[in-house]
């Protein structure tokens, strides 16, 4: 028997991959886009979120696990992730979390993050743009674009996204220039909504 108390704690989420010590992440300050080469500091990525329903997201999580980042699987709904984990984690943990999920899951996390002064610091959208093609959209400084372009020219871009969040600078988005570039999709047959690679970090990250 499970009590109501335990209900949401169990939830639907699983840690599909091995959990190891938190990876470090280079993070820039909180206002305006910051260059990769400018003021940065390091903080642990305390959680990597993936959506088990999407092959691209599972590939992202597998690479993240290889890189030593703890992973947490969802299936669209973030209830268990919130109730079992982030609700408490965000009250005390100064670390960032990252993910590759559907946009609706990120929307929820972005709204929930306001309570604890957390913001989306990196957002790269991935849209199915036709057979075998995915369009990647982000806003940011040119040096970040230069870094990302080769990553999205390969069908293994989900793994590349994991590498990006494991080491990329976290930056804020307003006022940035947009980048839109298409590349080979890899397996996208299971997409029914736009996917997004993201990092959420405390606003006072320095």
């Amino acid at each position, binding site marked *: 028997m*499970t009590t109501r108390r335990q*209900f949401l704690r169990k939830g639907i989420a699983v840690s599909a991959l091995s959990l190891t010590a938190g990876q470090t992440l280079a993070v820039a300050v909180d*206002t305006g886009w910051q260059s990769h080469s400018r003021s940065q500091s390091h903080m642990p990525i305390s959680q990597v979120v993936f959506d088990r329903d999407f092959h691209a997201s599972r590939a992202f999580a597998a690479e993240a696990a290889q890189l030593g980042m703890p992973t947490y699987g969802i299936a*669209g*709904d973030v209830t268990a992730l919130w*109730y079992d984990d982030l609700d408490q984690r965000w009250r005390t943990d100064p670390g960032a979390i990252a993910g590759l999920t*559907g946009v609706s899951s990120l929307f*929820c996390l972005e709204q929930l993050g306001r309570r604890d002064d957390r913001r989306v610091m990196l957002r790269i959208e991935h849209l199915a743009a036709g057979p075998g093609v995915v369009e990647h959209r982000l806003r940011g400084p040119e040096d970040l674009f230069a870094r990302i372009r080769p990553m999205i020219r390969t069908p293994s871009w989900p793994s590349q996204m994991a590498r990006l969040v494991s080491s990329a600078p976290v930056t804020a988005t307003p006022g940035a220039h947009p980048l839109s570039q298409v590349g080979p999709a890899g397996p996208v047959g299971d997409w029914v909504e736009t996917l997004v690679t993201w990092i959420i970090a405390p*606003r006072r990250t320095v």
Partner: protein
Amino acid sequence: MLPPGIDANTFAAAIAAFKEAVGEQHVYTSNADVALYRDAYDIQWGLPGERQVSAAVAPTSVEEVQKVVIAANRYRIPIYPISTGMNLGYGGSAPNYSGSVVIDLKLMNRVIEVDDKRHFAIVEPGVTYFDFYRYVQDHGLKVWIDTPDPGWGSPVGNSLDHGVGYTYMNYRDHFYSHCGMEVVLPNGEILRTGMGALPGAQTWAEYHYGIGPYVDGLFSQSNMGIVTKMGFHLFPAPEAYRSGTVFAPRRRDLIALIDEVNYLEHSGTIGQPNYGTPLRAVAQQPAVRAVMEKVGGPTDAEFETVAREQHLPCWSCQLQFYGAPGVIDAGWAYAKERLAAAIPGATFRDDLSYRFPLTHEQELQIPHKPSLGVPNLEMFRSRSPMNPKPTDGHVWFSPLIPKSGEAVLEAQRVFGEASRGVDVPTLFGRGNPYGPLSTPQTWMYRAFVLISGWPISRENPAQNQRVIDALRHLVQVGAEHGWGEYRTPPAFQQEVVKTYSFNNHALHRFHETLKDAVDPNGIIAAGRYGIWPKHLRDKHE
């Protein structure tokens, strides 16, 4: 941005005063921080008409709220309090009056008291339904909360916005089930209502009225003060739950169905009834659409021919029972007996049956968790076969109609014709959001809402404008038939309030009189539900 009419020096002085009041770390002024308070479902997103925030302040105590209000008065800064700002579709975290400073009560998040013998609670505005649920579970308390869908909002904020839930009787009406509040008035003074006005009161969250005029309603959908505590009556945790569905074969059976279900509900036998039609599952078939979308609507014979050809009954209603196992089993048996007598040919289906506590497998299978008082965010799992391309948000049109089959059939026809030809997608595909298959929502306990959701697109402002035009039309059509909205997004609040126009808008003028008396500088939530302070009235009404 600056608040309207406030120069940079004055605003800087006000921000300094806010920092003095709450601490620098709890004052948000950067563009990136302030952007978090944009209404994610603003129908004017990205356009000049989008409601903007100039700064945000997060007090941690009622004393800090007082200091903030006093500072706002000193500098004439418009402020807009939110509890958690999660009422998406009805305004979110952004103010009616663009440029206001948001007073974010998120850090006032104490569950002050929960009593599971007398069944009440007192909480602060930053407590979410998740927090509330966790507190009850962690302390092993024998009460349920009644949560809206989704559960990330605040009981205080939701009830003040006249929000609703899904369990039993009046517990679903969150403002109705509140009992007592603490308010910081626009002059910074603290007011306690009801029994709370009695120092040392022992029944603040149990008896609503105290003595003399009852004023709590002045602080809901309003701008007369900032609510910093509220009491709520709570549903004693039931031992068991069961649900069952009745199916009615003919179109006009809806009248008897609603009459009987009203009796069961108002006499306390059932919780929230859920009306539907099995024909919804085939509504996109061309032959069915041709009948249901016929100008003027289908005749009863045409409607029932469709049902017969599809081998489906015309209506369904799921009944929910809460209580002792023997009692709810008897309740279901009694409901079937009454409904079978009233509706020839009615059929019945046993649905869910739970004894608490649940097994984990049972918990995961609960199809709608708020019906069991469990908060969740599942509704944001937007991708589905029904909704393959989720929108950027939505606004609701929420007219109240009487709880009768005649009223439902009439409202289906009136709103169906009024929204015919509107060229926007609905939340779940294309087509008219109203029609002969529309069924009422039942949150309110004593009234129906024939709600419709309308999409918002951040990339298609022309479509958004068509939504605005359509909803404005529906507001007027509804009012002409005596159907007013219970709640509406800021973009429509002024117009909806104007439809409540009895005796030359006597109620609205009374609200304005009160506003001028309690908030002479007009600092709190200007424009909320059409109540503008005197100095802004000419510009906005």
